[in-house]
Structure formats: structure tokens, C-alpha cells
């Protein structure tokens, strides 16, 4: 991978999207700065995932009219990776083989040592030979994070990857992800105001009619769980989502 591809670019999307003649969003403009965690917050069904799918190049069935670009002008392909709410681990492969899936899919030489190093980073050194069915929900999502990391791609798309986890595991995973995804441009799609106020260096609130910017609380991410500013931002975000403010 060349150096220019390793630097995380900013992202820009502007336009309309339709799925089977149904309008998903119209005149939407979303700008994500290079290397920032950008939270796209909204209720279910407002089209957050469509935005993410467009950036991921998974535009099958989506009719998009507009601009989709990276700040350095290079195409997105081979620079994007994503994590979903479902860990998407293949149940017949062990943790290490799951981490190496991308390498095998591209027909490249697999490097087990590298996979083990990444699994160690996510705290699963002792679980590398276990099948997903032998791992807890949190551990499985850690394997998914390791699989995302080993791809070494500058743009990371996160589609509510922590929402199915219990509160304790979720907060630990948030911290781990922020630590390990440093320097990458991250788009985090979430419906959770607490997550957005904890992780967003920029926050956009998406509703069926518009995209609204929200000034995130000060402080480096991940912000403290009981930090008054984070809690206050969380409250404000919730009120906006409920349409009372």
C-alpha cells in the first residue's frame, strides 16, 4: 500500500439516494474531517446505514445521485473497512482464521504471526484457536475489531458495532476501538446518544428531513462515562432525537 493511501483522508457526501423509488435522503451533505471520529446519530430507518453503505461501495440497489469523494481525490476502493452490529465472524473458522479472512479472500499470503499480534492487541492472545461459538459476545466483537485492524485501511465504517453488547463490555470496546483506530477516519453510525456524546469528535444528527450538526462536548475521546459535559450532551442529543428541542 502506498503512503498516500495510508494517510486517512476526509470524506464528503452530497446528494440524494433512493431505494426502489423510495426516497432515503435528499440534498444531504455530510463532511467528515481527516482522522476524526464522526458520529452519525439518528433513529432507526432514517437512512444512516445507506450513507455508510455508499461509503463502503455497497451501493447495490441504491440509486445515488450526487458526489461521493475523499479529500485526497483518490477512489475509495481498497481503503475502506467496516464493522457491523453483527460480528460477521464465520462460524467454521477459528479466531485467527477469521482475522485472516481478508488476506485469503484477496489471494495474498497469510501471515499467522501478524494475526496473532493483532489478536494480542485486542486481548485475545489465548483465544486465537477458538471458534466463534466458544467466545462471548464481547470477545467475538474483539475478533471483528482485530479483523478490521489487520486490513490496515485508513477509512473505518462502524455500523452500530457495540449496540448488541452489555453496558460494561460496550464501554470497554469503545475505549479499545478508540485506542486502536487512532489516526483513521472513522464514521460511526449509531442510534445511541450516549455513544455519540462519548465518542464523537463531530456529531451529525440525521432525521428523515435533514442532517443537523451538533457541537460535541469538549475533551478527548473516549470521554468519561460520568463526565457532566458528556452527560449533558447526551441529554441534549436525546431531546433533539425526540423532537422536543
Amino acid at each position, binding site marked *: 500500500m502506498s503512503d498516500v493511501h495510508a494517510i486517512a483522508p476526509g470524506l464528503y457526501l452530497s446528494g440524494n439516494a433512493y431505494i426502489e423509488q423510495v426516497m432515503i435522503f435528499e440534498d444531504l451533505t455530510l463532511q467528515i474531517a481527516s482522522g476524526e471520529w464522526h458520529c452519525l446519530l439518528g433513529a432507526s430507518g432514517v437512512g444512516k446505514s445507506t450513507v455508510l453503505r455508499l461509503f*463502503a461501495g455497497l451501493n447495490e440497489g441504491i440509486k445515488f445521485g450526487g458526489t461521493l469523494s475523499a479529500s485526497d481525490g483518490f477512489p475509495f476502493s481498497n481503503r*475502506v473497512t467496516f464493522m457491523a452490529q453483527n460480528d460477521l465472524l*464465520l462460524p*467454521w473458522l477459528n479466531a485467527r482464521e477469521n482475522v485472516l*479472512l*481478508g488476506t485469503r*479472500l*484477496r489471494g495474498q499470503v497469510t501471515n499467522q504471526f501478524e494475526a496473532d499480534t493483532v489478536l494480542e492487541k485486542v486481548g485475545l492472545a489465548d483465544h486465537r484457536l477458538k471458534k466463534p461459538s466458544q467466545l462471548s459476545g464481547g470477545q467475538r466483537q474483539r475478533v471483528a475489531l482485530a479483523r478490521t485492524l489487520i486490513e490496515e485501511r485508513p477509512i473505518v465504517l462502524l455500523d452500530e458495532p457495540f449496540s448488541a453488547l452489555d453496558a460494561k463490555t460496550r464501554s470497554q470496546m469503545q475505549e479499545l476501538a478508540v485506542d486502536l483506530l487512532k489516526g483513521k477516519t472513522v464514521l460511526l453510525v449509531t442510534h445511541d446518544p450516549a455513544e455519540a456524546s462519548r465518542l464523537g469528535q463531530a456529531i451529525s444528527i440525521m432525521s428523515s428531513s435533514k442532517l443537523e450538526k451538533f457541537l460535541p462536548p469538549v475533551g478527548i475521546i473516549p470521554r468519561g462515562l460520568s463526565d457532566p459535559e458528556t452527560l449533558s450532551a447526551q441529554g441534549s442529543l436525546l431531546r433533539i432525537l425526540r423532537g422536543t428541542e
Partner: protein
Amino acid sequence: MRAVCFFFGSLIFGVCIWQAVVTLTGVPRFILPSPTLVVQTLWKSRALISEHALITFGEVLSGLVLGTALGAISAIALSASRNARDLLKPILVFSQAVPVFALAPLLTLWFGYGIWSKIVMALLIIYFPVTSAFLDALMRTPRGWLDLAKVMGGSSRRILWLIRIPAALPGLASGVRLAAVYAPIGAIIGEWVGASRGLGYLMLLANGRAKTDLMFAALIVLAVFTIVLHFLVDRLATKYLDRPD
């Protein structure tokens, strides 16, 4: 353990009713021989029955292996190409509208009185369930896995081998389980239409000479073989094709 007890319990119950009917009604032995007579004949004619049984078992196993292999290859080919699917699916469905039994004389004409016409008969009867169950599973790969593979930059050939086929193996397992039950039917029908060896031939011969006890003995051997085959195939499919989760 409980299931085994009930299995033998119901077997003994059935045999008792059979013996009671024969004893109480005094039905002639060429209409319905008693279970004790059938067991005696089975023991006395063990050499004759095993000689014919081995032929039938060989036909069934060959048909099962070939039919499964051909069905699996067809399903993979059909899943890989939409044109092949659109072209061949109507033919597959039409082929099922023709009763396979009606083809038996034709197969004997084409493949002769030897074992091949029976193997082809067994193959034809199991080809559709195997192809259809495996193809269905191949076309239902969870979308998330395919999205992930696409973003990772996998070619469609590698996605097929590394994700779609392994994910569809439980579907193949259901097809093979059905095939194990159908294959003996195919072989026996083939033998009825034209053969000089095999359990089907022996049954016809015994029936024609009013040796109903021998016919029952051959039938019992066939039934036990089918049950054992089904059990073994089920165990193998569970071990190698199914997934624990």
C-alpha cells in the same frame, strides 16, 4: 437411551401383532408368513440373500456417491452463474415432473441389465433433492458476510469457495440425508424392471414362486440396510457438514 428402548419396544410390539394376526386368522403362509418363518428362511437362505444383497448395496452406495457428487457440482455451477440458473432451472423442474419410475425401462434399454442402469436410477432419484437443497443454501448466504467479503476486495470465485460453499454445507447435509433414503428405492425399482441379480430381483423371483417368506426376508434385509445407511449418513453429515451453531 430412551429413544433406543422405544425403538426396540415398538419393533417387538409390531412383530407380536404380526405373529398374533397370523396365528389367530390362520392366513396361508404364501399370503402372509409368520415372523418366525421369515426369520427361519432368512437364516436358511443367508448365502443366497447376501449374494443378492451385496449387489443392491453396491448399486445404492455407488448411486448415492455419484448422485451426491453430481448434485453438489451442479448446484455450485448453477449458483455461480445466473445464466446457467435461468437456463437449467426449468429443465430441472420439468425433469421432476416426469416420474422417474417411468424412465426405468428406458434406462435398462440404454444401460443394460447390469448394475449401471440401477446406479443411474438411484442417481436420478437423488440428484434433484441434493441439487435443490444445496443450491437453495448457496443462494442464501447471509448478506453481511457477502458485504464484508466485497469490502475486503474478494473475487467472486474466492467468495464462493471461502464463504458461500462452506456456509451452504448444512444445506447439502439435508440433501444427502434425503438422498440416503431415496437411493435404495431407485436401485430396487431398477432391479424390478430388468435384472438378473440384486434384492429387487430376488423379491420378484420369490413372489412369482409364492415364496412369500423369502420375499419378506429380502425386504427385511433391505429395510435394515436403509435404516443403517440413513443413520450412518446422518452421523457423517452432522459431523462433517453441519455446524454446531
